[in-house]
C-alpha cells in the first residue's frame, strides 16, 4: 500500500483542506463532549426555559457545533421539527432606532420590543419546545443591535416555559451589556468552545486523509494499515515548526487559530509543494508562497508594524507563546504616549489591515454619560497575516 505523499495530497488538496461553506466535507466533531452535554441538557429540559450562551472566535465551529447538537436532540425527539421549531436571527441584520440602544432595558414593554424585533411571529405554527438562536453578538454588531437582540430574546424566553434561547458570539457575551440582560434569565449556561489546537487539527487531517485520499484508492485495504498511514501523513503535514506556526500559531489567550485559516494556508502549501514521493514533506521554504494567496491591500509602512514584527520574530525564534498587548503597551513599542487618538487611528488601522486582532470585550468602555461606545477593545494579539509575513522575512533573511 502506497503511503501518502506530496503528489497524492496535492491531487486532493481542495477536498482534504476544504475550509469553505460552498463545498462541504464531512468532519467528525471531536473534543466537545462536555459542551455537547450542556446544550443537550438545556434542550431536553422540557417545561423549563433555558438560556445558553456560546463564546468562540470566528471560524471556531460554533455553527457546526450547534447544528450537531440540535441534530442529536432531533433524533431522540420526533415531535421536534427543526424547520418549524428552531429559528435563527443575526444580530447584524436587525434594524434599530439608533446605534447605542441605551433606551433598552429588561423592563421595556413587549409592544416596544416587538416594534423593533418581533420574535413571536417567527414561530407561527410551532408547538412544543422552541429554540431561538441569536448569532453574531460580536464586534460586527452595533451596541444597539446587541442590546435589542438580548432584550427581545430574554423577553421571548420568559414568556413561556418551553423555550430555549441560544446566543452566540465573541467576548461581547462576557461583557456587562450582555450580563445586564442574560442576568434576567431563570437558568443560564455558558459554553466556551475549545479553540483549534495542533491535536485537533491533526485529528481532522487524519480523518480527511483517510476518507478522501487513502480509502478511495485502496477500497479493499486493511483498515488498521490505512489508519496508520493516515496518521503518519497528518503528522508529516505539520512536521516543520514554521509550517506549524503558519497553521496554528500559539497565543495566550489561545483565541487566534481557526480551522478556516489553518486549512486555508495548508491547502496553499499542498498545491505548491515540490515533488516528493514516499511521504508528505512540507518544507519551510513553502512559507515563501504565502503572499501569493493572501488577499487585501496590506502594507507594512508604519513603525508599529515593524515593532510588532520584531516581537513576533522573537517569540518564534525562542518558541515561546505570543502574548496580547494593551493599547498602552503598543504605544510604548513606538515611543508614543498612547491615548484615545493612538488607539482610534493607529491601532484601528492595523486591525483594519488584519495585522492585529482585538480580544477585549466590545462596548465595555462605553459609559452611560454619553461617552462614545467603541466596538474595538484591547488587548490585541498579532494576527495570522502578521505572523505569516514575519515568517517570510525570517526565511529570507
Amino acid at each position, binding site marked *: 500500500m502506497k503511503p501518502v505523499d506530496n503528489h497524492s495530497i496535492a491531487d*486532493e488538496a*481542495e*477536498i482534504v483542506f476544504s475550509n*469553505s*461553506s*460552498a*463545498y*462541504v*466535507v*464531512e468532519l467528525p*466533531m471531536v473534543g466537545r463532549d462536555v459542551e455537547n452535554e450542556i446544550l443537550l441538557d438545556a434542550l431536553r429540559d422540557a417545561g423549563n426555559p433555558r438560556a445558553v450562551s456560546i463564546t468562540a472566535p470566528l471560524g471556531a465551529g460554533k455553527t*457546526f457545533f450547534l*447544528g*450537531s447538537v440540535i*441534530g*442529536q436532540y*432531533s*433524533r431522540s425527539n*420526533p415531535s421536534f*421539527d*427543526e*424547520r*418549524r421549531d428552531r429559528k435563527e436571527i443575526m444580530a*447584524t441584520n436587525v434594524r434599530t432606532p439608533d*446605534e447605542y440602544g441605551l433606551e433598552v432595558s429588561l423592563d421595556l414593554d413587549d409592544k416596544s420590543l416587538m416594534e423593533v424585533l418581533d420574535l413571536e411571529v417567527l414561530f*407561527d*405554527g410551532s408547538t412544543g419546545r422552541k429554540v431561538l438562536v441569536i448569532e453574531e453578538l460580536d464586534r*460586527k454588531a*452595533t451596541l444597539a443591535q446587541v442590546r435589542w437582540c438580548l432584550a427581545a430574546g430574554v423577553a421571548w424566553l420568559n414568556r413561556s416555559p418551553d423555550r430555549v434561547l441560544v446566543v452566540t458570539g465573541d467576548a461581547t457575551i462576557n461583557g456587562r451589556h450582555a450580563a445586564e440582560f442574560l442576568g434576567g434569565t431563570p437558568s443560564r449556561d455558558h459554553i466556551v468552545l475549545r479553540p483549534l489546537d495542533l491535536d485537533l487539527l491533526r485529528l481532522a487531517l487524519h480523518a480527511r486523509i*483517510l*476518507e*478522501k485520499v487513502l480509502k*478511495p*484508492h485502496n*477500497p479493499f485495504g486493511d483498515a488498521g494499515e490505512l489508519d496508520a498511514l493516515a496518521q503518519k501523513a497528518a503528522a508529516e503535514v505539520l512536521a516543520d515548526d514554521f509550517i506549524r506556526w503558519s497553521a496554528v500559531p500559539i497565543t495566550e489567550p489561545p483565541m487566534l487559530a481557526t480551522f478556516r485559516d489553518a486549512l486555508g494556508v495548508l491547502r496553499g502549501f499542498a498545491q505548491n509543494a515540490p515533488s516528493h514521493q514516499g511521504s508528505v514533506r512540507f518544507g519551510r521554504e513553502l512559507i515563501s508562497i504565502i503572499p501569493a494567496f493572501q*488577499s*487585501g*491591500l*496590506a*502594507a507594512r509602512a508604519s513603525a508599529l508594524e515593524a515593532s510588532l514584527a520584531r516581537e513576533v520574530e522573537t517569540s518564534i525564534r525562542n518558541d515561546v507563546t505570543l502574548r496580547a498587548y494593551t493599547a498602552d503597551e503598543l504605544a510604548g513599542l513606538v515611543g508614543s504616549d498612547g491615548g484615545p487618538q493612538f488607539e482610534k*487611528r493607529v491601532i*484601528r*488601522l492595523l486591525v*483594519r*489591515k*488584519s495585522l492585529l486582532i482585538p480580544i477585549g470585550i466590545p462596548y465595555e468602555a462605553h459609559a452611560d454619560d454619553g461617552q462614545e461606545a467603541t*466596538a474595538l477593545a484591547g488587548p490585541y494579539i498579532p494576527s495570522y497575516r502578521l505572523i505569516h509575513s514575519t515568517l517570510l522575512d525570517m526565511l529570507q533573511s
Partner: protein
Amino acid sequence: MSTNEVRVAPAAALLQMFEGVDGPTSYACLEVIRRLRSDASTRLSLHQIGLILDDLEVGVLEEDVLDALVRTGAFQNEAGTLRLTPTAKALYVADTGVTESVLAEEVIDLLEGTKHVDILPSVSPSELPRCVARVGRWAQSLLAHATERDLPGFPVFWQRDEERSVPLGLDVGSMASVDTAALLLEPARYGWPVDLAAADLASIARAWRYVLDLGIDSPGDWYDGAIFLPQFDDDFVGSFLPAQAKLGSCPATEAIANRIIGLLTMVRAIPDADKALVLKTIHRVEAAVGCLGRWQLDSGGWAIHRYEGDVHQLAPRDVSCQYAAEALVEVLRWSVIPETLRCECLRQLRRFADFIIANVHTDACGSWWDGDFVVTAEHDQLRTTTLLGLVLGRVAQELADSQLIEIQGLVVRYIQARWDPKSEQVFESTFRSPTWDGPALTSFTWDMVHDGFILVCILDWDARGGVLDTGTEEKLLRAIEGIIHSEYFGAWLDVPMFREGKRRAFVSNSLHNLRGVLSASAWIARSFPTGIGPGW
C-alpha cells in the same frame, strides 16, 4: 437587440470623481457606493462603512472615505452618517472622454454599468440550439472520461475550463451518476433528435448498466428498488458513516426517483437498445416505484427517506416530493408500461395530489405552499411552490383533476408576481442527509437553479393554454438571456463556489438549466412561429 438607449460608464471612469484621492481610498469609496446600492438604502453609518472596509481589508479609515465621498458633491455627512443627496449633481468622465454631469441618484446606476430602460434581451433564438449542442459536447466528454478511466460512478463537480474537465475529487454522487448521461440524452425528452456516435453509444451503455446496477434487487425487502452506493455520496454529504461502511450511503428518495427518470430517458433515447437491457430496466423501474410506494408517508407526501417501522420519523420535504412525483409521471408517459405498474403510479399520485391540495394556501395573490410545508419565510415558500409547480400540470393531466389544474394557474400567478430574474440567484434547501442511525448530525445545503426552475414552471402552464400576466413575457426573455449568458463552455457553474473564485461545473444544475433552455426553445417556437417578435 435592445430598442432603448443604454448608457455605460465603466467604473474606471467614475474613479475620476475622486480627484486627489489615492487608489485604495477610491477603491473603498466605490465599494461603499456599491453596498449602498445593493442594500437599497441611501444612508450608511460610520460603523457600517467600517464593516465594509473590514471586509475589504483595505488600510483606509472610514472618516477618509466619508470625506472623499462628500467632496464629490453627491453625498452628505449628517453627524457621521453618509447620505446620498438625490438632487445633487456629480461629474464624471464617460468612456467617450467627454465630461458629463449626472444626478447623484444616477451615480449608483452608472456604477452598475448599464441603465435599464425597457431593455429587451439580447440573445438570438439561434443561440438556444447552439447552447444545447455545447452542453451535449460537454456531456460526451464527461462520459468518455469516465469510460476511459473506468471510474466507479460520476462526480458531482468538475473543474472546468475551455480545454477540459477534471473531476473534483474521487467521490461520486447518486444524483450525478444519473444526471451525467441525462445531459446528453435530455433533448430527446423534448422531441429533439440526439445524434450518438458509436463511442457515445458505448459510453451511454456503460452508464446505463451502472445506473441499473445501483439498484437494490431484493424482493420483499424494505429497500428493494432503492439505491446501494457502496461509498461516500457527494450529493448527500453525511449519508455515509465510516463506521457502517459495509452498508454504503443511506439512500435518499430523490436519488431513487431520479434513477427512475434517468433510466426511462435512456430507454426513450435509444429505441433500438439491447432488448435484455430494456427488459431489465422495466423490472428495476417497477421495483423502484414499489419502493417509492412503501416510502410514501401516511400524509401522501415523501420525506428524504423512510425508515422501516418508522423508527425515525421524517417530515415531508419539497424536493423529495417533486422528484417522486416527477418519476411517477415519467413512468406513466411510457407506452409499454404494465397495467399493474400504471395502477400503482396513479395510486401514489392520487395520494400525493390529496396531500398538496390539503396543504395549499390560496388568496387573491394566488396559491402557494409553505417551505417544506411548514416554514412561512417567503423565500422558502417560493421555493416549495416552484418545485411543486414544476410537476403540477402533469400530475393534473394524469389524474384528470380539474382542481389541480385550477391550482396550477393560481400557483403560476403567485410565482409571476414574485419573480425578478437574476441569473446568479439560487434556491437554497438545507437538510440533513439520511443515515442508517437517523438524520445526519450535520446539515447540508443544495443550491438549486432559480430562474431555470421558474421558467419551466411557467412555460408548462403556458403550453397547456394558460394565460400569462402582463410583463411575464419580458421576464421569461430576461431569464433565458441570463441562463444562456451564464453558461460556461457547455456547463453551468456552482454559484457559491463561483463567488469564491472557483469554476466548478455542477452536473445536476447544468441539467436543470438545460431543461430551461429546452422549454424556452419550445415556447419561442410556438409563441413566435414566424420568428418575428418583440426584440427578436
